[in-house]
């Protein structure tokens, strides 16, 4: 899942300070799971914003809607009738959703309520950790199912480095050394020999190095 967190409420308030009617749009996808922008969070934000603006003698009409997903055109189409008379749209989706709304509603001021942080998952309820670096060419079969690209602070392919001490990363004592984890796991699996293969430099052009990326599946495209 994509993990995001809410911006400070006053930062969001400032983005819509001169608007009289605002639509707050939640997303029932990833940001619901990470408790940042689902239906509940959207209601809370709208409510907080109405209270704040009333106290400032600048009343706000705040309405809400939560889409199944904001990253698919068909799910934001249902907003077409809702947006008509609003002065701004606040999206509680990840950065993808904000941009889908901005593209569809070209005459509206669309602003983000969240900071989109990483892709990962929860370890315990209320804590999420980054797990995948979207490098474009997965190597988890070489590293025992532990990603050194994102979980090693240096993203090294032949680790660990000299900064690994007692299983922790030198960047921060709260960060496990990914290469220690990889070594321990490969040892337990009896596959330490696989770690002896030196990995050549990674082809970063499959990551972000060639500009924004596309994925195409011609066999499912509807139009020729």
């Amino acid at each position, binding site marked *: 899942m994509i993990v995001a967190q809410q911006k400070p*409420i006053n930062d969001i308030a400032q983005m819509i300070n001169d608007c009289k009617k605002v639509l707050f749009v939640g997303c029932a996808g990833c940001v619901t799971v990470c408790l940042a922008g689902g239906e509940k969070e959207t209601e809370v934000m709208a409510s907080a914003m109405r*209270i704040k603006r009333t106290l400032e003698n600048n009343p706000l009409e705040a309405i809400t809607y939560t889409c199944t997903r904001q990253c698919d055109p068909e799910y934001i189409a249902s907003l077409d009738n809702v947006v008509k008379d609003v002065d701004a749209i606040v999206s509680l989706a990840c950065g993808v959703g904000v941009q889908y709304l901005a593209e569809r509603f070209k005459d509206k001021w669309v602003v983000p309520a969240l900071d989109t942080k990483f892709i990962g998952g929860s370890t315990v309820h209320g804590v999420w950790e980054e797990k995948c670096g979207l490098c474009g060419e997965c190597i988890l079969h070489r590293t025992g199912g532990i990603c050194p690209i994102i979980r090693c602070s240096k993203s090294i392919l032949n680790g660990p480095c000299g900064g690994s001490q007692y299983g922790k990363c030198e960047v921060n004592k709260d960060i496990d050394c990914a290469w220690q984890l990889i070594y321990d796991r490969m040892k337990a699996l009896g596959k330490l020999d696989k770690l002896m293969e030196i990995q050549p430099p990674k082809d970063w052009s499959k990551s972000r190095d060639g500009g924004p990326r596309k994925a195409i599946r011609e066999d499912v495209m509807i139009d020729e």
Partner: protein
Amino acid sequence: MPEFEPKIVAFCCRYCAYTAADLAGSMRLQYSPNIRVVEMPCSGTIEHGVILNAFEKGADGVYIAGCNLGDCHFLKGNVRAIKRVAAVKKVLDEIGLGGDRLEFFHVPASEGTKFAKVANDMTERIRQLGPSPLNKSAAGNAKKEGGQTA
């Protein structure tokens, strides 16, 4: 001008504070008539949005009353409620309503006196803070629906 009578919503866990309210009645205890009690299956069922909604609908103060630590019928519902209250207090501070208008109290089922004391203390606190600034413009209305019938 009559003294300000705050309107206070008290979300009470049925396993402790709500039972304590009954006990307070059996004990013939007098306590502030400004509170409106809402029975909850557990203080842990309170949600951020419900608290804000109470303020939007005219409450001058809100409190959640749950079991002592370790006594929750659902093990940790009260711990969750305490954390949520802390989070909403922060929101109330940020939006200018003031986190002081919201509180969490431990009120065991056997302590009718504590139930009454909490009701009186919270009423006094909110009276000191004055009407919710959200009610100021509609002060008349707020008064009309006010505390005496609680």
